């Protein structure tokens, strides 16, 4: 039922994109990928080429002190990128619906000029479908920003990764926007 609602929401609010977009109620700007559709919400900005169950690029900004759903660990403003990556991995591992979780890469990374981390991982959902995610994240002031490319195993493509990298490169924090 949740899925149906989600898909309906996607089609109702989706629109063709291109050009610069800011997250709704957020203080960042990104260049939207051409010919991908956008779903904007208060929680995240999401683009998909076909459908979100096949692939998506997601950009999210969350308060540093906001509790996670599955782990009781929390961010701390003074955390190193490695420590922030640990918290994200622990949140995913503690989610009991994420199966066969495997970290392929966990390394420091720079998003625009911000020091952060890059974690690449695979997992299966309860239906046995395998997904692969490239997850960039960094802490900046009171916020944790993350940009992800997620695709089902048979939809994961180098072309989409290049698109994601262009989005990543265009990411900017808009200091003029107070949140």
């Amino acid at each position, binding site marked *: 039922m949740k899925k149906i609602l989600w898909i309906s929401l996607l089609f109702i609010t989706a629109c063709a994109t291109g050009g610069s977009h800011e997250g709704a109620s957020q203080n960042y700007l990104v260049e939207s990928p051409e010919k991908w559709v956008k779903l904007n919400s208060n929680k995240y900005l999401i683009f998909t080429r076909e459908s979100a169950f096949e692939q998506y690029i997601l950009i999210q900004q969350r308060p540093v002190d906001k509790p996670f759903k599955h*782990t009781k660990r929390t961010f*701390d403003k*003074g955390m190193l990128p490695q420590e922030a990556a640990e918290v994200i991995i*622990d949140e995913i591992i503690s989610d009991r619906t994420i199966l066969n979780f495997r970290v392929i890469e*966990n390394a*420091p990374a720079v998003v625009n000029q911000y020091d952060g981390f890059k974690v690449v991982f695979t997992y299966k959902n309860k239906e046995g479908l395998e997904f692969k995610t490239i997850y960039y994240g960094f802490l900046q002031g009171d916020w944790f920003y993350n940009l992800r490319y997620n695709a089902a195993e048979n939809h994961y493509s180098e072309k989409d990764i290049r698109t994601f990298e262009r989005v990543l490169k265009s990411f900017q924090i808009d200091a003029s926007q107070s949140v």
Partner: protein
Amino acid sequence: MKTFILTLLLCFLSVGCATTRALPVYEESGLTVEEKKLLASAAEEQAFLESSGIIYEDEKLEEYLHQIVSRLQPSSVRDEIHFRVKVIKDPHLNAFVLPNGTIYMHTGILARLNNEDQIAALLSHEMTHVLKRHALMSSWGRDAGSPAFLGHLGKIGDFLALLGSIGTMASLSGYSQELETEADLVGMAMMSAAGYDPKEVLRLFEHLTREKEEQNIKEPFFFGTHPRVERRIENCRQFLGTSFEETGPGQNIERLFLERMKEVILDNASLDLRAGRYDSARRGAEKVLKTGQDDARAYFLLGEIFRQRGGSADYGKAKAFYEKAISIDPKYPDPHEAIGLIYYKEGEWVLARQFFESCLALSPHPPGKAYIEGYLKKCVRRGIDS
């Protein structure tokens, strides 16, 4: 007394209460259509669980648990049900059994128990659900399928969402008051017949009650939905008082037991740490140290708890535990990296560099290698600048 308990157990297993069918379980000729369906669902769910990466792989531990099951299993049904025990990597306190006799115990509950009798208490309870065909009774609609039962499913955790069959779901979510009470009482009779101390059931309940209070949860899975834990404890006390006055000490040899369980306790403490359950993680690490063994990994975990939970205020305590871990096992790379991280954050570039370098010398390819190499470059640069 032993004869009395054996007689009591035989009565339970062969007659049961009015609502329980007394046929031996899984005797092919006696299988109903519902039972076949239930077993097919159980086999599917078992295959799913065991391919999902959540099984804790430790052959020796499984063998040990299987020995306890064999000792508990009444000889009258030994050939009819082949119980298996698997351990799930999960720090929450739970255990459940599929109708085909496969018992799943979370690392969380194994790590909390103090002796073999307490494991026997848990296993005998789960075995009774199979021996008395509780899942089948639930699939007949006495428990499962009712609006109350289905409504309950959404509230007891997302683990249930992984499994599909209503009949087998009951084994996770708990059965009715009558069936849970039966599992408690028959379980105690099985324990006593096998030479375990049934009074340890009360200690098992104490662990679960403590978890319930600490984690602020309504009822852990194992308690099921009915009756409430207080009532189950009271039922067990009464049963103990009337039937088991003369039982011996059982296998209540805590130190030997904890030595055997050391690895699973520490692995579970790591899972607790990942879930941010710091008090549980600390209890696990300290439990291992209480056996009188100095264990480097236990001290490292205590260091991690203080580094992760307390932030800079607890760095001193964290460093002391890491240093203790290094003193016990100088070749253990993880505490070197962790101390390096603390010194790095404190701006102690020379000390940080020293520990990062010693970490890489001990383990040339640690999981955090890319980060460590970055820290080393900065340490060198900042060390020169200062």
